[in-house]
């Protein structure tokens, strides 16, 4: 917001509630709100209005500020929170070494991104890729070699012959393939997925006299 300085505190609260401020401006306005009880009250009323607009069921039935006072008494007895969320503006006055000590003393969560784990995962992934990739390469090499040798064999043993001249060019036929297809005629015309069952379904007899 360019002209934030020219607007009232209440309007700033309204804009901040809507998440329309930059981080710096937001931090400044929040700093003003928490220091001013009247501003906190405004924040509360705006929140109530928004909630009730969205759902009438959210209208407060009891004194919510009393709830907060009660909570604040409990929180006052709580130990200081460990700082794990560094913010530039909030810690502007803290020296780098002090900040490092604070962050270093904070307990690290189990899923925190630690470099040694990242390195371990990286090495493991590389090993898996190398093994799987190598295996696939060897397989494909072998397969290619086999196919090549077979093709060569066929080429040497059974040269193609021109069976017929067609308008689109000569039709090449392989005599060995023709032989093979003749011997396995029952497969012709069937789907590659459905091989015919090897049993006699029915039979007819055609007599000579008919």
């Amino acid at each position, binding site marked *: 917001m360019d*002209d934030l300085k020219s*607007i009232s505190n*209440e*309007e700033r609260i*309204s*804009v*901040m509630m*809507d*998440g*329309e*401020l*930059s*981080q710096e401006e937001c*931090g400044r306005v*929040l700093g003003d*709100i*928490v*220091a001013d*009880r009247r501003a*906190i*009250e405004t*924040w*509360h*009323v*705006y*929140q*109530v*209005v*928004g*909630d*009730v*607009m*969205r759902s*009438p*069921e*959210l*209208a*407060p*039935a*009891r004194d*919510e*500020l*009393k*709830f*907060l006072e*009660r*909570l*604040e008494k*409990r*929180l*006052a007895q*709580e130990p200081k*929170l460990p*700082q*794990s*969320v560094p*913010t530039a503006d*909030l*810690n502007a006055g803290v020296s780098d070494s002090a900040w490092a000590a604070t962050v270093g003393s904070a307990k690290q*969560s189990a899923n925190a991104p630690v470099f040694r784990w990242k390195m371990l995962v990286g090495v493991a992934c590389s090993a898996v890729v190398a093994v799987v990739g190598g295996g696939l390469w060897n397989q494909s090499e072998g397969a290619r070699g086999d196919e090549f040798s077979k093709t060569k064999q066929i080429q040497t043993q059974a040269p193609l012959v021109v069976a017929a001249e067609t308008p689109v060019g000569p039709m090449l036929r392989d005599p060995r393939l023709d032989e093979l297809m003749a011997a396995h005629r029952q497969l012709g015309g069937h789907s590659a997925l459905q091989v015919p069952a090897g049993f006699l379904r029915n039979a007819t007899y055609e007599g000579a006299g008919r």
Partner: protein
Amino acid sequence: MNPAVPTPKQDSDTELVQRTVAGDQRAYGLLVLKYQRRIQRLIGRMVRDVDLVEDIAQETFVRAYRALHQFRGDAQFYTWLYRIAVNTAKKFLLELKHDPTVSENFHANDDDDETSWKKAEPTTDEGPESILAAKEIAVVVNAAMDALPAELRQAVVLREIEGMSYEEIAIAMACPVGTVRSRIFRAREAISLQVRPLLDQQTGKRW
């Protein structure tokens, strides 16, 4: 020429969390004032006793406070708080397993949340005065909304109910962003003016 780079907007929840973790408990108070109604309604779906609802809500906010440094902002703050509230309520209910004030609905449906429709039976023992006060606030807000000039009402509805950004509202209403900001603020102020006395009545006096 250098094109103007839009400044990234800051979610106020994130800022409030950061402030709290940095040691400012008053910032946490603002989060409480923002979310306590939703949290209490959520717990109210599970528990009959209104005093117990408040106790569980208190415990929820204390637990959330203790764990606040672990909140990384991956999810919305309310989503995170919601899980804490549900777990806290479950723990309370386990301890009070044979207590007749426990709502049966809670055991029947774990996925129940504060947005789900109320079951046939009311789930709280709220006193008639409190219920009346809440209803009055709802009526006043609606009446104040209706009394707003059309452009203010439209702006605040698009923001609060539709959740649109200022830029989106500016496009929808064919006006500058500054006008949108001003309209939303004026609408809020006009409604707040009617609501404040009712909130004051609940306290007797406010601070």
